[in-house]
């Protein structure tokens, strides 16, 4: 629903914000006692709820709406809004009274229910619709959320009016004529859909009949697939949005539709890997599903052609499949949905979702469980033994007169090896190169970062702990600062990006895996380590955590040479592979090592300089699956 005659305060199209803005959550306050007017209204709208639910079927269930009384809400852009995350409908009764729609409770409530059960119905569909709308709007990203919601509104209203018998016409009439070209177009479309005389809802004035006709066909065509029609809807609306200003030059009621408010951080599972999210939208006038036989104007006049002669093949089948949103697009879609927190969080969600299908089983080591204690016989307790070891009961039974060292006894304890075994996972020490030669994983799909995510998440899934370190030039290090089970902290390191020079943090590698005596003593980047949180247990070579084997993995490109050349760019002339810190570290770690490199060509050079490390190349998206397969095979070979 829109907010009737009120006008918004948004920026004009010319002053579009760089980041698509989501509608802020309305601020709610503690309810105040209703006066008689609000009490009656609240009762009436509560009574209307079952009928509104019934418009969507006898078995539709949803928690009762949240009816906000006078002064309870501020910042709401409409009298009604919904939240897919909360699965809840909210109504601002104060605005209901202001708009004079108190008698249209069923229509308003049924409309809001429609967002939960029909369009978009779930966050994934909302995300797919938003992605399509962004493509259709081309350069009006900041309108994506608005247009997505408007498209859902049209589908819901048409269904309610034509199939459920809900009086949406009466509601629109009560709200009055629209302001601005967009709402005029929307309401003219409704007039066509509902066989109303022109001007019934759209009011007097010029009307975009041609666009309204094609939108009417679009609504009916994609009534069962909201996401597929959203892009075409946006393409039709785009020119109207660009010039949709009121007589005063400000924005129009198009800023005030029935709103969707979500909590930041609400997950949208499946959106990052949705293969149809980037399908190029088709203008409805060019979409065979919409225009049907009318598209084939030359053939349709043929009298021998039957009624189906104009049908053409589904354009969807010819669309490229497999394209998914980039991390940057994904972040923008989340922003439009109002669930984004920041770019990093969006990138983390993107890589986690993409990595999920490639996770490999990380090996574990079976070790005997803790020994069990058995009670044995009695041994003499002699002077000098710990007084606490005296078994006083046995001593008193042996003699009522206690003579230390003569009559005192102590219980002998035996131990037995447990038949149970514990599976000890191999921890992962992950180093991610984020120098300037590496792609920024937060903005573009980076196969190399995905490989890192596969490694880290595979280890975490097996119960291992992960130390993830993002490195670039000297002093540019961020990470978990120790081994941790916190997947978010690990993924933050995977998607972090410096874009600086290349200098592998040898001191950190040595500190983690080598004893004090084995370290080269080099001082470098570790001395000025910048950590992104201390969620993990700092794991030096001598800590208790050292008991578990570790796998060392490095995500890099040709800059990995610095790992074997003590931070330098090239290998020294007297290079001895087996004596490098990296080689000694992987031997000490005991769980093997992996170099995952974004390089072209065979990796022979790196194999020679990195004894103890398995070398993989991941330079393209197609390399990820072979990498995961080879990784699993190698890990099990190294650690079985």
């Amino acid at each position, binding site marked *: 629903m829109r907010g009737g005659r009120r006008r918004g305060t948004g920026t004009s199209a010319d002053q579009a914000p760089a980041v698509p803005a989501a509608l802020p959550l309305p601020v709610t306050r503690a309810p105040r006692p209703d006066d008689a007017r609000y009490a009656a209204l609240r009762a009436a709208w509560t009574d209307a709820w079952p009928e509104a639910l019934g418009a969507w079927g006898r078995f539709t269930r949803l928690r009762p709406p949240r009816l906000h009384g006078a002064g309870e809400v501020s910042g709401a852009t409409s009298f009604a809004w919904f939240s897919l995350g909360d699965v809840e409908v909210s109504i601002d009764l104060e605005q209901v009274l202001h708009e004079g729609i108190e008698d249209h409770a069923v229509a308003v409530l049924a409309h809001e229910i429609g967002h939960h059960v029909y369009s978009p119905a779930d966050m994934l569909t909302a995300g797919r619709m938003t992605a399509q709308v962004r493509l259709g709007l*081309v350069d009006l990203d900041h309108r994506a959320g608005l247009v997505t919601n408007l498209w859902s509104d049209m589908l819901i209203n048409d269904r309610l009016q034509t199939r459920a018998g809900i009086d949406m016409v009466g509601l629109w009439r009560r709200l009055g004529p629209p302001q601005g070209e967009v709402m005029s177009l929307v309401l003219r479309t409704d007039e066509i859909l509902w066989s109303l005389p022109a001007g019934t809802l759209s009011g007097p004035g010029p009307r975009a009949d041609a666009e309204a006709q094609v939108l009417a066909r679009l609504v009916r065509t994609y009534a069962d697939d909201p996401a597929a029609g959203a892009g075409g809807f946006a393409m039709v609306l785009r020119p109207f949005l660009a010039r949709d200003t009121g007589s005063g030059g400000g924005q129009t009621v198009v800023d005030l539709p029935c709103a969707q408010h979500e909590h930041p951080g609400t997950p949208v599972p499946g959106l990052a890997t949705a293969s149809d999210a980037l399908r190029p939208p088709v*203008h409805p006038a060019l979409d065979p599903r919409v225009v049907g036989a009318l598209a084939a104007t030359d053939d349709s006049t043929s009298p021998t052609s039957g009624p189906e002669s104009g049908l053409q093949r589904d354009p969807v089948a010819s669309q490229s499949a497999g394209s998914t949103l980039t991390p940057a697009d994904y972040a923008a879609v989340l922003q439009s949905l109002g669930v984004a927190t920041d770019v990093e969080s969006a990138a983390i969600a993107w890589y986690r979702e993409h990595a999920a299908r490639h996770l490999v089983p990380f090996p574990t080591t079976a070790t005997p469980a803790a020994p069990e204690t058995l009670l044995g016989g009695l041994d003499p307790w002699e002077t000098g033994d710990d007084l606490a070891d005296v078994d006083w009961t046995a001593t008193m039974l042996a003699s009522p007169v206690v003579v230390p060292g003569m009559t005192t006894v102590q219980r002998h304890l035996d131990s037995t090896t447990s038949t149970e075994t514990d599976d000890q996972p191999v921890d992962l020490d992950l180093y991610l190169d984020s120098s300037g030669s590496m792609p920024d994983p937060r903005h573009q799909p980076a196969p190399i970062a995905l490989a890192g995510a596969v490694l880290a998440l595979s280890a975490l899934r097996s119960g291992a702990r992960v130390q993830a370190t993002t490195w670039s030039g000297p002093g540019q290090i961020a990470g978990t600062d120790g081994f941790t089970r916190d997947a978010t902290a690990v993924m933050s390191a995977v998607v972090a990006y410096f874009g600086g020079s290349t200098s592998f943090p040898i001191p950190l590698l040595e500190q983690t895996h080598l004893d004090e005596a084995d370290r080269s003593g080099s001082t470098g980047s570790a001395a000025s380590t910048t950590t992104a949180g201390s969620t993990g247990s700092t794991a030096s070579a001598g800590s208790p955590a050292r008991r578990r084997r570790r796998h060392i993995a490095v995500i890099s490109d040709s800059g990995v040479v610095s790992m074997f050349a003590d931070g330098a760019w090239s290998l020294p002339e007297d290079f001895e592979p087996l004596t490098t810190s990296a080689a000694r570290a992987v031997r000490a770690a005991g769980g093997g090592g992996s170099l995952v490199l974004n390089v072209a060509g065979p990796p022979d050079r790196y194999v020679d300089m990195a004894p103890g490390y398995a070398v993989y190349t991941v330079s393209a998206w197609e390399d990820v699956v072979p990498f995961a397969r080879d990784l699993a095979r190698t890990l099990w070979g190294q650690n079985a």
Partner: protein
Amino acid sequence: MTVRDGLVDPAQPLRPGPTLATVMQRIAQTPADRLPAVGALGDGSPRPGRAHVDAAAVVSDTLADLAPGGVRTQQQIAWLRTFFSAPGGFGDQRARAALITSWVLADPALRRTPVLAEVLTGPEATTDWALTAISRLSTVLAPVLEPSTWPSTTATREETARAVLRACGLHPGDETAVDAEARWQTVSTEIQSLVLAQLAEEARRTEELNRALAAKRAREAAAQVSHV
């Protein structure tokens, strides 16, 4: 934008006729023998061994019912046979359209329309009126909306009903002439084809512009990345 069609005489304003529902109901009740399959009528000549509907005869009978005092001339029958024997399957299409149209025109509810009393002043005028409607429906509506689909859906029934009324110089009695014209603009297949063709052309031009814009944005993005 109002698009003209060949169903109405621009010089004659449309006048109120029966309600739209009345005509739509009549169309929905079209008997099966007035709905022969596509190509079943051929060029109108009888085919031995097969049941055959002679559209010219059916229309002629309808005309006789509409204008009882009229004389069915040989010339009239000959005109109908010529009309229904157009080559390329158009004759078959016209004949099937005429079978349905004549069924609608024979509806007493339509003939009782008060304003038609001024038109149907005699057998000759009635025959001219009916033949005009039949020929308009057969040559204007049938090529864009297959006659066999006319009774099948609400949308096609509405379009056919409005077309019949327009061809008779009428508009639905429960609408104003302006509303009826606006509604016709939105339900007419022919008009929609024209409108969609214009929109399609516009959309193609917009797509070209968008592609150019996208390419420009990609170049700008690449330039930003290369300067990191």
